[in-house]
């Protein structure tokens, strides 16, 4: 049994190392000077210089950030409304809501994306950054709802009732009592909603206007060429750094939530 545990432990560490390996190699090759082969021939920072001077990368990054921010605000507000309504009111069909909210998470994104594109064109809405935002909100409401609702289920409505007894009306009780209690849950929901939007490729790719690029679309344009464009590796280093920051923030927020 002891031996078995040791094997299991060694196996776990090996798998963890293998999960990280491709990313480490990606970063190592961002310092490679040869563009023709996947062999490391010499150290250079040239890929980084060409990345810094590439305004299209920064333009895409900016687009990812601002669309992600709008998507986050809209979907978190809608999710809070929904979670509050479900937790505080009785109405017919209430039990169905959680299942309905899971559908956008389960449906494969490529189908969501193509149906939305067909719909937008049929009703005559021209593709723009806002159609991308509309599409992201449609799945992000669900991600945000799941998190906010979990938080709302975990606290006692007596706090609100106490505020009501002391003379606060519902809106005041909501803004002064419910929202502050929910704050960590809302922060977690906002971060997840933002990351889902920031990282989204498929839905953006289908519903974007020509020429509008977010960071994942830019990455696709480079990666879908044959060969090894090494300034993409330099970009990868940057993206990895940002992701680690997000992972850190998320970890901090979740510690406060649970």
């Amino acid at each position, binding site marked *: 049994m002891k031996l078995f545990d040791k094997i299991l432990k060694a196996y776990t560490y090996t798998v963890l190392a293998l999960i990280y390996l491709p990313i480490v190699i990606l970063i190592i090759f961002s310092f490679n000077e040869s563009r023709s082969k996947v062999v490391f021939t010499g150290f250079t920072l040239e890929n980084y210089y060409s990345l810094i001077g590439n305004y299209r990368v920064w333009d895409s990054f900016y687009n990812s950030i601002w669309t992600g921010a709008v998507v986050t605000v809209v979907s978190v507000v809608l999710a809070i409304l929904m979670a509050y309504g479900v937790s505080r009111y009785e109405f017919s069909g209430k039990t169905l809501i959680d299942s309905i909210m899971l559908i956008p998470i389960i449906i494969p994104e490529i189908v969501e994306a193509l149906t939305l594109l067909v719909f937008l064109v049929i009703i005559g809405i021209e593709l723009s950054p806002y159609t991308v935002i509309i599409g992201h909100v449609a799945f992000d409401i669900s991600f945000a709802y799941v998190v906010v609702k979990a938080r709302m289920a975990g606290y006692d409505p007596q706090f609100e009732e106490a505020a009501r007894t002391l003379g606060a009306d519902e809106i005041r009780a909501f803004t002064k009592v419910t929202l502050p209690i929910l704050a960590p849950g809302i922060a977690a929901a906002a971060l997840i909603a933002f990351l889902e939007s920031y990282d989204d490729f498929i839905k953006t790719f289908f519903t974007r206007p020509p020429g509008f690029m977010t960071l994942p679309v830019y*990455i696709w344009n480079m990666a879908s060429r044959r060969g090894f464009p090494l300034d993409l590796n330099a970009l990868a280093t940057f993206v990895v750094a940002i992701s680690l920051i997000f992972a850190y923030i998320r970890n901090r927020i979740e510690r406060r939530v649970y």
Partner: protein
Amino acid sequence: MNVADVIRRSRRLKLFIFIGIPMIYLLIFFFIPFLIALLYSLGMFKQVVYQYHFVPEPSLEYYVGLSKYPGIFKAIQRSFYYATLTTIGTLLISYPLAYYIGVKLEERYRDLAVLVVFTPFWINFLLRVYAMRFILHEAGMVNTILRLLGIITEPIRFLGTDVAVIVVMIYSYLIFMVLPLYGVLEKLNVELLEAAYTLGATPFRAFLKITLPLSIPGILAGSLLVFIPAVGEFVIPELVGGPNTTTLGTIIYSFFLRVRGVTGWGIGSAAGLIYIAMILVASYVYMRFVGGEVRLG
């Protein structure tokens, strides 16, 4: 009475604001598009100049067009083949990992271990797929190691083959299997196993009779989370595959974004809806087959 008062007094209005607004959003921008795409795939929208007109005469023209597309049946078969192997692969790799973290590892290290597993999956999916090109290339790491070990003399060409697609799919989808498995294994009551040992069960038998049956909800959730998107995967076959790795996903992608036009979209929508129909049937059969009644999420 001002607006705020009306809102305060009317329960119906409150319900409309809380539940109605988000639901209307989803209805318009999520559910109705499915209906429209269905009608579109049945040829019920005709384009006149720049406007679409509804024509209540369904036709199967686009579905017939799809069935005549060269290699379509092979591609569907291949999509299910990839998705099945990906599901089995992620399950076999994740189970011992999730078991170690959820059962064997000391409790105080578990959160950290989950964080360590999770972090790489925060990095953009496309970049992770691109990264695998460096590993699988003819001069890449796998070939180099095999050559140094003396197993091969000529490099093996992985990129463009089924092997590359499946390996990268397993790598990319791993986390969707690890998390649900960890979820059930972490809650496993170790005393049950101890009781089994006391009563004379071998570790293997205890595993078969206790641990495995208790992990079925996790296996089910993980399998569906991997299998459903894996069937429609198009990014991985496009980035590490080649002409022989056409899948349902790459077909939908090329009809929509390469062929384009009314016909391209019609056939693409037909393919998308067939995809949904097939995975609904497959998930249903799978759930009945493996575990009876199980709730997702």
